[in-house]
């Protein structure tokens, strides 16, 4: 099957340049060789249908409205040997600790600004910095209950952080569903491998969630937690349903909640019931029309007051956006050094600020080699991939950059690693990345594996599901690379 597979000039997760599988993929390779073409096609179709039938979809919005789509699933897993994973795990914990310390700091004493490490303007003029929560002591001093950190590998196979998501990272449900489908449709593949299980991870998540007890909660009772969703038309609604259901908490919308005397209640068939912890999947701006955008119909009037009074916990914290935008990203290694006095275990991708005139000049001259991103955008929108762009696209970006240079950053085009994908009856190499999920309460806990995203359009570098990306299962081998347990 993989006989004519060409790794090209890229680092390949599975194959060596010579066409043999890497050690930790050897068993997988042999098992796949045993499948016939028909079997592979049938299994592929069964797997895709499974997502459709179960309605595991996300909604894509365009000018004609929303359409429900499934995320294409690719069965070739990303396999990570244990020692490599342990390093990622340490790196993620380290990074999250630093980011959390940073968030607590910028909303309190601002030591990192005073020390001259992060410019004041970058913090206080950030659109996601909220004066409203300055000086607020949040439960456990934890601002990030669930983070999603996107990792890539360069042409040396070195893992690098591409992006931190500290607001509302989605996709955790896919980690579980990908594994579920994989086990249903490709059980043969599991016989020879001993991999980290995902069981207990959701009860861990639930435990961590309810550890965020607000100051004034009734300590004699188990706190009541809810998941606040924008509703069924939100693109990540399935993620919300899944997490609420698995954690055994109510899935509420803004209209289900009411604040009375600075206490939050949900409206039940037996009247009002007090809510202690809100895992919100609504953006800051929409949380409370009294405190933020007055036109928000998704939020709950008075929520911020209840939060400030210590009557309710809101996770992830309000104002986390200041730490995870593409400009602040550049400073994360410095945060790690400043707060933890450690060197970053997983490095960043080299990044240029365009507010620096010399850099700006360089970038404008080398647009065809670089990746340019809007610091405020996400999901693969408003970005230019130099080597794959047309002259017109580059001209458009040149204008945009000259207009507001501080709105953009540039990065060298990394030769993103690739892995085989099986679609339409053949294997071909596709670029991949890995979203690692980190839960944080008393201490951070990393979900083993994560969501491997794959750019299924041949040659494409964009893995976002809204732009044709797919998902893969991610295996952490519990034993050495050539396990056959």
């Amino acid at each position, binding site marked *: 099957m993989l006989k004519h597979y060409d790794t090209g000039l890229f680092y390949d997760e599975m194959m060596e340049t010579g066409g043999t599988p890497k050690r930790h993929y050897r068993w997988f390779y042999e098992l796949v060789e045993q499948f016939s073409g028909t079997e592979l096609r049938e299994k592929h179709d069964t797997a895709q249908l499974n997502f*459709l*039938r179960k*309605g595991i979809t996300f909604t894509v919005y365009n000018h004609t409205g929303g359409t429900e789509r499934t995320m294409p699933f690719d069965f070739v897993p990303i396999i990570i040997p244990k020692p490599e994973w342990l390093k990622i795990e340490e790196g993620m914990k380290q990074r999250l600790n630093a980011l959390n310390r940073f968030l607590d700091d910028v909303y309190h004493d601002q030591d990192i600004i005073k020390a001259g490490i992060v410019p004041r303007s970058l913090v206080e003029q950030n659109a996601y910095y909220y004066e409203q929560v300055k000086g607020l002591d949040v439960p456990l001093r934890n601002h990030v209950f669930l983070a999603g950190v996107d990792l890539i590998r360069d042409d040396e196979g070195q893992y690098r952080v591409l992006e931190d998501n500290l607001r509302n990272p989605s996709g955790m449900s896919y980690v579980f569903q990908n594994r579920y489908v994989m086990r249903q449709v490709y059980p043969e593949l599991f016989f020879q491998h001993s991999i980290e299980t995902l069981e207990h991870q959701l009860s861990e998540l639930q435990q961590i969630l309810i550890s965020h007890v607000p100051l004034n909660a009734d300590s004699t009772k188990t706190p009541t937690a809810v998941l606040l969703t924008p509703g069924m038309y939100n693109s990540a609604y399935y993620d919300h*349903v899944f997490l609420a259901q698995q954690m055994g908490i109510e899935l509420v*919308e803004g209209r*289900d909640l009411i604040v009375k005397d600075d206490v939050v209640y949900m409206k039940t*068939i037996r009247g009002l019931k007090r809510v202690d912890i809100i895992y919100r999947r609504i953006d800051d701006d929409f949380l409370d029309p009294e405190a933020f955008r007055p036109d928000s119909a998704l939020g709950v009037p008075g929520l911020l007051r209840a939060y400030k009074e210590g009557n309710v916990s809101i996770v992830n914290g309000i104002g986390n956006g200041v730490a995870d935008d593409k400009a602040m990203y550049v400073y994360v290694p410095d945060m790690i050094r400043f707060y933890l006095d450690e060197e970053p275990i997983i490095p960043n991708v080299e990044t240029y600020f365009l507010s620096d005139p010399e850099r700006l000049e360089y970038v404008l001259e080398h647009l065809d080699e670089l990746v340019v991103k809007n610091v405020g955008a996400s999901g693969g929108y408003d970005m230019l991939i130099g080597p794959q762009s047309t002259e017109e696209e580059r001209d458009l970006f040149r204008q945009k950059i000259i207009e507001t240079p501080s709105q953009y950053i540039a990065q060298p085009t990394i030769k993103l690693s690739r892995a085989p994908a099986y679609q339409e009856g053949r294997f071909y190499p596709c670029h991949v990345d890995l979203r690692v999920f980190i839960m944080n309460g008393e201490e951070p806990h990393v979900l083993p594996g994560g969501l491997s995203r794959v750019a299924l359009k041949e040659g494409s570098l964009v893995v976002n599901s809204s732009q044709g990306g797919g998902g893969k299962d991610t295996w952490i081998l519990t034993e050495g690379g050539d396990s056959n347990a």
Partner: protein
Amino acid sequence: MLSRVADSLYWLGRNMERAENNSRVLSVQLIHILEASEGQLLDRNWEEVIEICASIQDYYDRYDRIDKETVTHYLATSPLNMNSFMNCMVYARENAKATRDIIPEGLWEVLNEFHLEQKDWQEQPATSQHIQHYLKKVMTTSMTAQGVVESSMSRDLPYTFLKVGKWLERGEKVSRVLNVFCEKNRKETESRTSSYYYWLTALQFTNGYDAYIKNHPPTMEPKHVLEFLIKEPAFPRSIRYCIDHVKEAIHRIEGGKVSHYSADLFDMIERIQEEIEEADIENMNMEQLMYFLDHFQNRCMTLSRMFSETYYLVEPVSVK
């Protein structure tokens, strides 16, 4: 349980039941017109079907003709008809989607599968065969969904709200069917054959023919049919059975007790039960029966409103 969730479950029960019942009515009607000779079938027959499944007023606001194709389209797939089966199924799926964390996975999958297949159906030509196939699909989807509910849901609050919606919808629908046939009977004092034909249709519309014929072989006395569909305690589609089960469901919600906030609700149900009990179907003429059925439908609306208010399914008046 959240009030919004309870409301969605209640409507999930209603929408599935409505889609199934309306499909059955149209399906039966389409078979009847195959059997009826030209000219026997009047516009009025279509009007009756529309009156059972939607609103004749609404229909004539949109169309100035009445024929098989137009009515079928209007009842089955018209996005403009709030009560078209397609809309009922779309609403039901949305109700299910809004309560996915509460209902059994299988229930959601059944409704989602219908939704996925519906797209194919829309592309097919509207031949009689395809229409019958579609109507059958609606009915089996509803029945499969009920099977999932009965076999896998705990008998607690979500189950109960679903069932209250179902019983109320069913009771109301049966009374609408009977109302139309009483009206017909009153207007057309024709031969016994056509009267036989009406009441047979009424039984088929309400899915009661098989059960009725076991009790009353092989007669088709109007009084018997009416008595059966209104008062038969053992038949799960009779008005009485539906109301008894609404009461039982609400009892379950209340743990068998009557509290101050639910007292009015129980009073209303008991009043409706008494009214059914006291109705002397045998000796009522068609006008009286129609009055009784109209009155019952109003009672159902009141009951539905009181139920919603008792459990805050509607936005409660703000408490200061």
